[in-house]
């Protein structure tokens, strides 16, 4: 075989994929970079990355093992590393557990309030220490 130019793999025949019963989501197409809204429709953040329950990197996956699941949506410094490379340490990741998600559409909807989550701490900090100090900050528009 001619090894000087790598041959691009062309699958001979594509089988029709097994069609799962529920909602099918492609991460990049339907989940990543979508807005996350809380139960009141207030934006919380965007989906910057997704955390899976497994597998261990660089470890052989035993045959017949259960597929991993999404444990959490990630936000925060992980946006920078997703764009430029690398990975922040686990303690710096801001997690929104998958259990809090109610629906996935053009946005990801949560069943909990924004203020109850770690993900909104910058908003709360700025609210309490900057905006609240400027007169009129808490008035209805």
């Amino acid at each position, binding site marked *: 075989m001619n090894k000087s130019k790598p041959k691009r793999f062309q699958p001979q025949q594509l089988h029709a994929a097994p069609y799962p019963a529920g909602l099918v989501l492609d991460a990049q197409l339907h989940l990543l970079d979508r807005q*996350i809204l809380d139960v009141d429709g*207030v934006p919380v953040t965007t989906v910057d990355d997704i955390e899976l329950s497994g597998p261990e990197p660089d470890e052989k996956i035993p045959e017949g093992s259960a597929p991993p699941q999404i444990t959490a949506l990630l936000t925060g410094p992980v946006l920078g590393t997703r764009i430029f490379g690398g990975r922040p340490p686990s303690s710096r990741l801001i997690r929104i557990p998958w259990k809090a998600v109610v629906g996935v559409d053009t946005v990801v909807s949560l069943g909990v309030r924004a203020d109850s989550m770690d993900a909104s701490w910058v908003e709360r900090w700025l609210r309490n220490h*900057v*905006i609240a100090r400027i007169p009129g900050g808490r008035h209805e528009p």
Partner: protein
Amino acid sequence: MKRLLGVALGILTAIGGFVDIGDLVTNAVVGSRFGMSLAWVVLVGVVGICLFANMSGRVAAVSGRATFEVIRERLGPRAGLANLGASFLINVMTVTAEIGGIALALQLASGVAYILWVPFALLAVWLVVWRVKFSIMENVTGLVGLSLVVFAVALFLLKPDWGALAGQAFSPSVPAQEGAGVYWYYAIALFGAAMTPYEVFFFSSGAVEERWKIKDLAQSRLNVLLGFPLGGFLSLAIAGCAAVVLLPAGISVTSLSQVALPVAQAGGQLALAVLILGVVAATFGAALETTLSSGYTLAQFFGWSWGKFRRPAQAARFHVSMIVVLLAGVAVLATGVDPILVTEYSVVFSAIALPLTYLPILIVANDPQYMGKHVNNRAVNIAGVIYLFIILVASLAAIPLMIATGAGA
């Protein structure tokens, strides 16, 4: 009757809100150097902004998602961040230019040095962003901005040779004393002035602010299709005044006084006063729009809560970022840079940044997941792809032309 008033208000606001410092300066410069031979660019630009605003407004009304959310979701974070960086920088440049414009107009009115008006303009812009309701803000600045129709009145009063003006407009050619490179450079600048990205960010976010639904689409289409072309007509009037008064005398536009000269000549002190009122309103309105646009783009990219319909306490990051933008704009002005110069660069950079903003809108306007059955029809798609091509060409040609002509010198 009330509906009719509402419709009229929408259209009038669109006309008055169309012209900003970029249109004022660029059209005056073009008129003073090229006469009406670049009028066709205004036409192309107006059709483009109508198309663009219509699509992004429809996306916002049907899906509830504003432009920059769509940009990040479609392009991914890397290209989205590049777009954000470019758009944000241009927005800050434009905020700087608009605040400078307010101050320059006030200087024209009062004789007090413009730099002294800048802090006053900053505070006024911020107060409106902080407290005034969105619709009131839009309506007041739009309606008062209609005073700029004094340019059209002045053009008539100047009794120009209509045949000559029409000849320049309908059979455009590069004038003898200018080169082809400079002609096309200003064509791109004029195009960028008509199709500013901040206009689209603002328009689509405004649709979410005002809670447009599908039933409001017809009204918005009317506002756009009647308002923007009439605004374009005002732009042409500005160029026409410059062509009639400045071009023959060889006066070049370096400050607002030259822009105002034809109007003062035609209608005296009264016309000048109306003009200044119009310029203050138009630049003030544009300063509000670009400041809000800066906030919208950042908030929509990062997923913050945003909107003037929320209490500032509920959109803290949004408001803090706008305060930072305003302070940055004033800091730039404090260095003594000429706001007219900043304006001239900002319109060209706007033209460069258009493709990255425009493509995702065109894509999403065709996506049934966002639009349901309100996806683009074939005619809109054909126009959209044609404009995509035009925008790409303008964007790619801008920097080489800028270098080759020394930014239109």
